[in-house]
């Protein structure tokens, strides 16, 4: 059995995959595409809670597919502990797809919950939320929560992901809380029967 990689090894692997094995697109194109997606959802649903749900659901679908790409390109093996999962997600996952490295922090005492703290967020370049979006409780980058949930479910982890704070809403930092509900044992993921 290979020993679990150290934090430095995760980081190095992430950088290596980003540099050599990943095709890149223009950042502005990406940001503008996501922006018009959110604005269209807002126009269609007119209810910010519903928009949050839709973003999360879209993220979920993306995450289920993205995990395969992630595993293939990074070549990483099974994570021994949830802590390794957290490091792999932040140092390799986010690095590979967005070239950002959120910090893992605020572990709960049972080591089943952690926070991802984002210094930068490529989705929100140039974005300023209007008043009613702020009041309505829109989490602009809620797609991240879905992606994490979908991806981890495909590797037998059921998690709950929620936004805690967002710089776009005037908070000090952008933070997502990830909570491990349980490990899935050879079950069909919920909602796919």
């Amino acid at each position: 059995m290979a020993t679990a990689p150290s934090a430095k090894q995760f980081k190095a692997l992430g950088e290596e995959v980003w540099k050599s094995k990943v095709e890149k697109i223009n950042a502005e194109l990406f940001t503008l595409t996501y922006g018009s997606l959110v604005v269209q959802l807002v126009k269609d649903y007119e209810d910010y809670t519903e928009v949050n749900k839709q973003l999360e659901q879209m993220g979920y679908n993306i995450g289920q597919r993205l995990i395969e790409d992630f595993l293939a390109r990074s070549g990483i093996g099974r994570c021994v502990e949830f802590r390794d999962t957290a490091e792999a997600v932040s140092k390799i996952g986010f690095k590979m797809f967005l070239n950002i490295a959120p910090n893992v922090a605020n572990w709960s005492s049972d080591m089943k919950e952690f926070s991802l703290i984002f210094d930068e967020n490529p989705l929100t370049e140039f974005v300023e939320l209007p008043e009613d979006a702020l009041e309505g409780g829109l989490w602009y980058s809620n797609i991240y929560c879905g992606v994490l949930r979908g991806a981890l479910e495909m590797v037998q982890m059921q998690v709950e992901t929620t936004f805690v704070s967002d710089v776009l809403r005037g908070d000090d930092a952008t933070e997502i809380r990830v909570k491990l509900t349980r490990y899935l044992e050879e079950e069909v993921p919920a909602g796919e029967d």
Partner: protein
Amino acid sequence: MSNEINCIALIGKQNNPLYLKNFSNTHPDLKYHYIAHTSIDVIEERVASGPKNLDLYLGLLYAMEDLAVYGYMTNTRVKFVAVVSVTEGIIRDAEMKTIFKKIHSAYLSQICNPFYNLDSQQSIDSKAFSRAIEAIGANTNTKTTMDI
């Protein structure tokens, strides 16, 4: 002495007012609205008469009393107007061009906001944009006063 920016105005492609910032206390906002509005005619004349005009910077549009009005129009027909108080000294084109480039960058950042509706013809109501325009004005004003 010092040449100060008194006002920066942005006018939309349908000649609707997009934004106006008054930096001076000598004249009320309304006067600058009037100045910006008259500038539209001058800009349209300039552009119509010279179809070979490839430069976004239009130079001095006109002068009145102690104010000089400079213009700049993007390819999408959005117009920027800068009103400068002329006390002494020559204002170089290069300086005005830098100012307009900064305004243009601020405008670009604003329109990239997905929540900003380009077609609505409403004026720009964004804190980040206001801050950027104020910074341009403050920067130029402090800079010129130190050039004594």
